[in-house]
């Protein structure tokens, strides 16, 4: 994977976030404080504006810079979490020319682990991890089985979708919705929704001819 792919992915993610304003905004209004869309929009905008600065860097360096940028622009709960994801993923990122799907999956998994560590959270707590953990596990498994990129991308999009849907009937035990008890049930988690959008945007880009 080249840096140019990362830059294109950033643009695709930004577009996807902008297209889903209503959903992101209303989800966080329902069980949070209503700023998640604005945060994600600000973060995506900041990354897209880095194009020039990133284009000449290696993928690992670019991912690290992205993490740092998110750390200083996103804010909220998603800021340090997504920043940690990118910075940890960057650390594990395979060297140029060695970026096979399995090593990318392992780097991705390192990112997800960093979120778990930072957020002290796991599966089933009604957070972005309910999308990221299953996606990461499946990514590793399918890459180990040497499935094609296309197969993997489709599977991950489905997995993300499923993870997102799973958050609907969970009681939140982390994040702002944790106070809600049963009242959080019936609502998707906003952070899970953005992660699903991000994964879908990247997979679709990877699928494009």
């Amino acid at each position, binding site marked *: 994977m080249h840096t140019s792919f990362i830059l294109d992915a950033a643009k695709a993610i930004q577009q996807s976030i902008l297209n889903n304003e209503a959903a992101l905004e209303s989800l966080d209004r329902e069980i949070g404080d209503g700023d998640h*869309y604005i945060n994600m929009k600000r973060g995506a905008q900041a990354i897209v504006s880095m194009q020039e600065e990133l284009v000449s860097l290696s993928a690992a360096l670019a991912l690290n810079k992205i993490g740092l940028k998110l750390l200083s622009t996103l804010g909220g709960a998603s800021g340090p979490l997504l920043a940690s994801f990118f910075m940890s993923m960057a650390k594990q990122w395979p060297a140029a020319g060695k970026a096979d799907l399995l090593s990318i999956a392992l780097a991705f998994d390192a990112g997800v682990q960093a979120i778990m560590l930072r957020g002290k959270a796991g599966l089933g707590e009604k957070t972005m991890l309910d999308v990221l953990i299953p996606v990461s596990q499946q990514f590793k498994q399918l890459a180990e089985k040497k499935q094609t990129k296309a197969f993997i991308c489709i599977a991950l999009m489905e997995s993300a979708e499923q993870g997102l849907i799973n958050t609907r009937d969970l009681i939140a035990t982390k994040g702002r919705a944790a*106070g809600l008890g049963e009242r959080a049930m019936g609502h998707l988690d906003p952070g899970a929704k953005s992660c699903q959008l991000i994964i879908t945007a990247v997979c679709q880009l990877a699928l494009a001819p």
Partner: protein
Amino acid sequence: MKKFINKLDDVLLESLSGFAEAHADIVKLALDPHFLSRKNQALNKVVLISGGGSGHEPLHVGFIGYGMLDAACPGHVFTSPTPDQMLAAAQSISTNKGVLFIVKNYAGDVMNFEMAAEMLNIENATIYTSDDCAVLNSTYTEGRRGVAGTIVVEKCVGSLAETGASLAECKALGEKVNQRTSSIGVALTSCTVPAAGRPTFNLAEDEIEMGVGIHGEPGRRRLKMQEADAVVKECVEAILADWQQKQLSLTEQHETLLLINGFGATPLMELYLIYHSATKLLKQHGICITRSLVGNYTTALDMAGASVSLCLLDDEIKYHWDSPVHTAAMRWKC
């Protein structure tokens, strides 16, 4: 949504600029990353830094100054500040006593301050405030939220820090005050985040949200509007139940501080009515109130509603609450 704003993107900076201009005798504003700090930094004291999402003014910027905070890092509206702000604030103030962060216990605030603390090459510690007793199942979750009681923590620790106390001593006092303070809020209306342009939640014309968070997070339960005494009764009883759970024991000579905090759109007239109602009820429970604070101190933008906070004083807390303070929003004895 009708608000006094120019461009959405400029709200925060223009407002902070106005704050810094209006209180240029006390604070100064640093840009990129943004933070406010005392104009005349005291040396040889623990540096107290707080911060959090904006929209709760005067919290925290209004509490920078002698006897209280050294700096505050404002995030976007209702969005935790980012670690670079805390780092810049901490690094711009150098004393040899270390840095104490005062952080309201919200996932976002906790993680951003935590990352700042990890990155900071100065001795530091953190107090997490968690006075909100609204959320019933908080023991199963990541914990209680920090709300209006945070002011009492900032005031008392601020006073102690001024005496040259150590980082550990300041942290210990802050944690004691937090432990002895419980709060609960009620919303009559939602608030509207400028960038969202519409109310965060909807309450019917006859509904109120008991236990609401200061970002409009849903609370304990939604109920029909009732007379003030009934609403305040539920608040007072929630607080006293929380004290029991915390095993705060009341001596004959106990004293308390009662704080009635407005969320932004509730007139003082109603806040004082709540104060009167709360004192009546607390007296019935044998609680003795000897300190009070009534006003908009920890707001939720333009939300109508109020919170009740009760702090069980002891001689140390009382001394530090009473001591001189000179900030934009709280000033006495100097």
